[in-house]
């Protein structure tokens, strides 16, 4: 049996706080770093998780009926919805036999008070770029599959990822949402009319997109140059000294080791993260497969 510490402190109501003395509440607002350190010293976290434990991951596939593929992911409170829209386009001159995938991460003001309305901020841009890199590096979709008529017509997949609730670890949630949505995507059949040379889309007949790889990310935070925690919440993210995201696929190949800076990490520590990421990959792939099968069974 797993021992579980349930901290009710999240309510910020001192009368309800059963597990810890009142002063901890004061400490949390006044000295947030010290507050977190006191838990980390005991090898646990303020919400009752172990250091290498993810929050509960909830996945819903096919959430948006108007999209060609969609998925909603909740990682604790962090919520990301992904909708995929397929459009016909002309391939580029450099790659006539390939379609393309355009991911976009949106962090609207509704998901957290830290984001302002207007053009995408730095975090949203960095996340979009990261997702684009993961798609390219992992070869989750081979862009050759998106080609309909070489040099003339191809599919372009617009993957819109929107964060509905921001509570840390955006990248992991985005990758799961994207992968699940891609697995859910069904493209209509396109035939090219030989007389008019115009494409005809048969919306009745749809085929599934072939997902070659299953990249899944695991994000880590480093506290005080040494303590590694997995799946940080937004409070932990803002207090830590470095971030790290490792993306692995089912063959245990790494698709991205993204550490934008912060305190340094030795090769040994990095290896620990990779091991954890590999376990996470299996866990999530199982989840996605099971949910996809349940959707298919229901149809």
């Amino acid at each position, binding site marked *: 049996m797993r021992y579980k510490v349930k901290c009710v402190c999240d309510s910020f109501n001192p009368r309800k706080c059963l597990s810890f003395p009142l002063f901890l509440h004061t400490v949390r607002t006044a000295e947030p770093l010290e507050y977190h350190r006191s838990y980390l010293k005991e090898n646990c976290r303020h919400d009752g998780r172990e250091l290498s434990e993810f929050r509960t991951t909830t996945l819903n596939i096919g959430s948006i009926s108007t999209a060609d593929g969609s998925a909603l992911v909740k990682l604790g409170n962090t919520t990301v919805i992904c909708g995929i829209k397929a459009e016909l386009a002309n391939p580029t001159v450099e790659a006539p036999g390939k379609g393309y995938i355009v991911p976009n991460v949106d962090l609207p003001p509704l998901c957290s008070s830290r984001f302002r309305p207007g053009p995408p901020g730095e975090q949203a841009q960095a996340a979009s770029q990261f997702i684009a890199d993961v798609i390219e590096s992992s070869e989750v979709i081979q862009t050759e599959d998106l080609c309909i008529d070489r040099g003339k017509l191809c599919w372009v997949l617009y993957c819109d990822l929107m964060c509905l609730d921001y509570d840390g670890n955006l990248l992991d949630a985005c990758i799961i949402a994207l992968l699940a949505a891609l697995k859910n995507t069904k493209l209509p059949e396109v035939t090219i009319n030989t007389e008019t040379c115009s494409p005809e889309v048969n919306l009745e007949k749809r085929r599934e997109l072939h997902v070659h790889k299953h990249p899944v990310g695991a994000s880590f935070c480093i506290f005080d140059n040494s303590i590694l925690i997995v799946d940080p919440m937004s409070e932990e993210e803002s207090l830590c000294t470095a971030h790290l995201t490792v993306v692995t696929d089912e063959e245990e190949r790494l698709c991205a080791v*993204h550490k934008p800076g912060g305190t340094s990490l030795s090769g040994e520590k990095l290896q620990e993260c990779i091991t954890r990421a590999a376990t996470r990959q299996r866990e999530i792939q199982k989840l996605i497969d099971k949910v996809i099968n349940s959707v298919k069974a229901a149809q």
Partner: protein
Amino acid sequence: MEVYGSSGVSLREFGCEQSLLSRPDGSASFIQGDTSVLAGVYGPAEVKVSKEIYDRATLEVLMQPKVGLPSVRERSQEQCVRETCEASLLLSLHPRSSLTLILQVLHDDGSLLSCSLNAACMALMDAGLPMSCLFCGVTCAIDTEGRIITDPTAAQEKESRALMTFAIDSKEHRVLMSATKGSFSVNELQQCIAVSQSASEKIFQFYRDSVRRRYSKTL
């Protein structure tokens, strides 16, 4: 120039010139083969109220591409450079002030991010900002046959299967920053880190030599 086909594990000839611009408080241009980046630092100076941080200096990094306006790619590189600099600079010594680091790409012939990191470090040194350690950037590419190439040219980058850039600190030679492209095995990653660590020794030695040369006479 690297010779194709032979063992690619070498750093192209590299060079650096410090305080070449009169306006910035610190400036440096760093050259790796044909790749070249110019860096300028302003600060510590007055900060905008909206960007003020009460207990440390605000560091802004701007990356200017050679052609056109900065895109999302530059943004993510800015983020990498900024967070690396933040980790090594002692920002808490200048609370409520601003530091601005501008990186201008002069020529991109591969390993651009590592060159930017090196230029940034030299410019920060030239500006005389207090740092807890120095850092350097090393790019490794893995070609289709699985060989590691350090400091690849643009052509080598294009042919490579995977590309990794690491920032290594001078104190413990650990990984400050990592940015990767393409897929690779765990073993390849660890090898590349080890190679970068050994390559970083050369770059730090170069840093030391150039500082020694610079202060050999009083300016």
